[in-house]
């Protein structure tokens, strides 16, 4: 019988340290058949398994059209992620996926995009940005707004500079606190919104980051009459199965693992902003 809980063996084919506690792994199923059948959309995630520890949900950051490449960018926060960080090329781990509903990259075609990221290296939004930039012709103006705690948190500076070179792309950066050399802004991400040249009816907002930041962005975008169904975010909850069975990722009537992790505001409005839901 097909057991959907069971991971498959995967191999690390490349690894890259982004910062001291952020790293990327490129994985490949060792079974070529499984690998060749693997398809995903940006915003979906995999379950990564280290034997004797646990499985953890991790977003896929590679481009879905780069068939056969499965990339993850992971922050070492606890035991499993730290041990993932110790993997070397050739090491084996368990992998299953992809799961969940990704970003509405097709629905959002022909609209302006506002992509807001809080915290650094928020994996789901990086994959989204890379995706839309590569298919820039399908979208209107693209505003990328990134907020971090401290200016020294910024990674991938080159990447921002690269993004800035695209036509019709604007990159806005801000830090809660910064040092003297910080060339960008200080303060919350919402400070940029007045300068955004967007048509609320023709804009899709997509964001990922701490729930507090997302709340502020939602509030602001609603003031600007962006419809709730065009405000999207990627949510995080505890997950053990990723199949909608274990019940741990519930958020109101939603199972984040299968109904999300990407939701629009209207879907979550009844639960939005209440502590402990």
């Amino acid at each position, binding site marked *: *019988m097909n057991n959907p809980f069971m*991971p498959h*063996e995967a191999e690390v084919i490349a690894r890259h340290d982004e910062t001291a506690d952020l790293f990327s792994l490129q994985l490949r199923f060792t079974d070529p058949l499984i690998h060749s059948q693997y398809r995903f959309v940006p915003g979906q995630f995999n379950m990564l398994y280290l*034997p004797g520890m646990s499985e953890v949900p991790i977003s896929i950051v590679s481009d879905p059209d780069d068939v056969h490449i499965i990339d993850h960018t992971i922050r070492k926060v606890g035991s499993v992620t730290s041990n993932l960080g110790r993997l070397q090329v050739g090491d*084996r781990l368990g992998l299953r996926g992809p799961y969940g509903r990704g970003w509405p990259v097709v629905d959002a075609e022909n609209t302006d995009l506002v992509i807001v990221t809080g915290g650094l290296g928020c994996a789901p939004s990086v994959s989204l940005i890379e995706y839309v930039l590569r298919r820039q012709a399908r979208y209107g103006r693209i505003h990328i707004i990134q907020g971090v705690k401290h200016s020294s948190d910024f990674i991938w500076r080159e990447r921002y500079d690269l993004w800035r070179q695209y036509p019709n792309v604007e990159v806005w950066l801000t830090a809660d606190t910064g040092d003297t050399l910080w060339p960008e802004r200080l303060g919350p991400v919402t400070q940029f919104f007045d300068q955004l040249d967007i048509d609320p009816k023709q804009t899709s907002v997509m964001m990922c980051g701490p729930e507090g930041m997302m709340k502020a962005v939602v509030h602001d975008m609603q003031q600007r009459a962006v419809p709730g169904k065009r405000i999207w975010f990627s949510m*995080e*909850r505890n997950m053990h199965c990723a199949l909608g069975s*274990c019940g741990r990722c519930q958020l109101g009537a939603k199972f984040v693992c299968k109904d999300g992790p990407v939701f629009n505001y209207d879907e979550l409005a009844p639960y939005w902003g*209440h502590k*402990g839901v």
Partner: protein
Amino acid sequence: MNRQRFLPGERFQSLIDQLKSAGYDVVGPQVRDHAIVFDALAKVDQLPIGITDEQAPGRYRLEKSESRRCFDWATGAQAIKPMTFVARETLWQSERLPDGSLTFHETLVKTRPTAIIGVRACDLAALSIHDHHFMRGAHPDPLYSQRRQSLFLIAVHCMRSAATCFCTATGDGPRARSGYDLALSELDEGFILEAHTGRGLDIIVQLGIDEATVEQIERADAGIGQAAKQQQRILPVGPLQEKLVSAVEHPRWQTLNDRCLSCGNCTAVCPTCFCQTHVDEISLDGQQTSHIRQWESCFNPDHSHIHGIVIRSERAHRYRQWLTHKFGTWEEQFGRSGCVGCGRCITWCPVGIDVTEELAVLCKGLVNE
């Protein structure tokens, strides 16, 4: 519809024997450790004959009843959940070979065709919710499915309600309506049997028993009606999802922060709760692991832990999650409430918190604010 037949009380053993010879292991209710539990049943005298249950919030006692009936009790400590969604089982195993490669193995469940005697209407309603959850999604659960498919269910229509029962309020009882193979109505002199499936009918035919009389059928109906009338607990008029979700900041939740132990008993005895935790067990040399799932509860802080925070960090949040999910958001997920009215969460709450009482307060006049 199949005709209803009558099995004299003294011949009940022949039903057990018939099921056995049809290849089933037989499971039935019996008294153990001051409660009624399901366990392997060989002889009719293992049944709780002449035993009844007295239930109240936080209280369960067995007593002698006036009758010699076998099913003169309302609900036991558990529904049949432990037989389909088992409390602890291995989902799969992995092994690391000396060359560093990893292999994964399925752990097959060993099931035997099993007939369960004494399944109540509420238990059946709960089972059908679990069938929906575990078998009908995009990823059917092979372990659940296999256990579920090995069951032969013999329902018993309730003729007595405990003080904590409220299945009339949820519409799930006291008469079992679907999801069983055979149903029993117990009269003082014996049982009315009705088949709901072909294999149920086979068993009846094998028993070679007569039709029940109209009078017997009427008496059974009256008994079931009586059970319905005994029920006192009610629910606010549904659907409740909107009412409960909009009660999210109701001050009542705070009182539950003080009263609720967050022990999770209500969720563990609830026949529809399905939350799990998955844990890894590892051999001493680190080469073999078992990935195990076990019952878990939204009352445990771990349940909503993500790195660095517990989302439902207060007891009040967790009580709110339980009640709002069970009676409210369940509607969107499953097309119906998650409550089947068995009353177990009221009885088995060590401090006797009563969901019907809480709902009454929480749903009063909040909808159209």
